[in-house]
């Protein structure tokens, strides 16, 4: 401890002796830092908010990624606009910020199921550059069971991150 305090005392003595040199240097450095800290006026964050969904099949205690064949996914009320089609093993679904629930139709071959999402909506100021985003909390899900077995909420907060929110289990062949 004595060595530490000796070094500390020496440093203080030297600082005091030369403060008229280092003080302006520090001021200059600080002003340069202030200039360098000029915040970018562009939005550099992700502003899109999606519920990230993955399709799986239980296989010997593990979840195996599964691809839906000849699939179509669209929102109830937006039958004219497909969110995805073809072979799908994961999808990013947009929740409706106008209402407290959103329903999606998932079609595979000739079978059709409905995924209903209920949530609490909030609006968050992401940053002054990016503006506001809608966030969805306390996510709860229901499905019908024509070819979908069950659904699990992994992360009940749907926001502007890439975190997986939902796993949908298909019936085993």
């Amino acid at each position, binding site marked *: 401890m004595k060595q530490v305090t000796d070094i500390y005392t020496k440093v*203080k003595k030297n600082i005091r002796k030369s*403060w008229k040199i280092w003080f302006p240097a520090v001021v200059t450095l600080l002003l340069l830092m202030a200039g360098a800290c000029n915040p970018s006026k562009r939005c550099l964050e992700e502003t899109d908010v999606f519920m990230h969904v993955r399709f799986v099949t239980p296989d010997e205690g593990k979840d195996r990624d599964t691809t839906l064949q000849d699939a179509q996914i669209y929102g109830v009320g937006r039958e004219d*606009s497909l969110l995805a089609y073809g072979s799908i093993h994961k999808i990013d679904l*947009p929740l409706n*910020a*106008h209402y407290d629930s*959103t329903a999606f139709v998932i079609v595979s071959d000739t079978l059709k199921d409905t995924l209903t999402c209920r949530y609490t909506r909030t609006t968050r*100021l992401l940053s*002054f550059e990016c503006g506001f985003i809608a966030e969805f909390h306390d996510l709860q899900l229901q499905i019908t069971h024509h070819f979908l077995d069950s659904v699990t909420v992994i992360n009940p907060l749907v926001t502007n991150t890439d975190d997986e929110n939902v796993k949908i289990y298909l019936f085993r062949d």
Partner: protein
Amino acid sequence: MTRTSKYIFSGISLLLVLTFSVRAQLPETQDTIRYGGVRVGVDLLPFVGYFLDPPMQGYELFLDAEFSDGWYLAAEGGRLRYHKTEPDYAYRMKGSYLKLGIDHNILNRTPQENESITWGLRIAAVDMTHEAEEITIHDGYWGDLNTSLPPDHLRPFWFEVTVGIKAEVLKNFFMGWNVRGHFLLIYPKGVMQPYIIPGYGNAEKKFPITFNYILAYRFPYKLKVKVKKKKKGTTTEEEER
């Protein structure tokens, strides 16, 4: 105890140990008399900030008074407002804050020297409101959402650790800077979470670091600190006003 709390506690402990261990080594020299004072100053960085980000307007005033050799009562107070209108939102925020605490000068000075290297602690609070209107959240599938958030009144509290220097560049004129680490104690709950808390910084950071660049004038104050010679193995200090 969180990792941040551990860092703060360790930092404060180290400062206290260094302060008292160095003071314990002071030679018991002749009687000295040093004049203290009340320093009143202003933080220049908000004015720099105005040029970098004009919607951000504010000021911060600084005051400290030496009440014992090397120990200061310190206070800072300020206002900050932010009005910004963008195509997708109009945001208004304003708040006034006050910080109270102590600073300690770790330099051993002669009576003629007034420069300082200090560490300090603060407890701080802000009274703020913010609101947002004409918010548009773009949604290419379900349609854009137009909404607004009503005025929200918040009173966050926080704790600060500061380290800084001040030098007397002209008689009774001081320049200096300090670095502040903020630790939010009472997080604001409201309709809309704030993005910036006046006096604190970015509300989304757990331990934001901010800087002050202070210009201050000292009103010489008749505080005399008299240190008596060691007598019979004991040392006494007395203060006279």
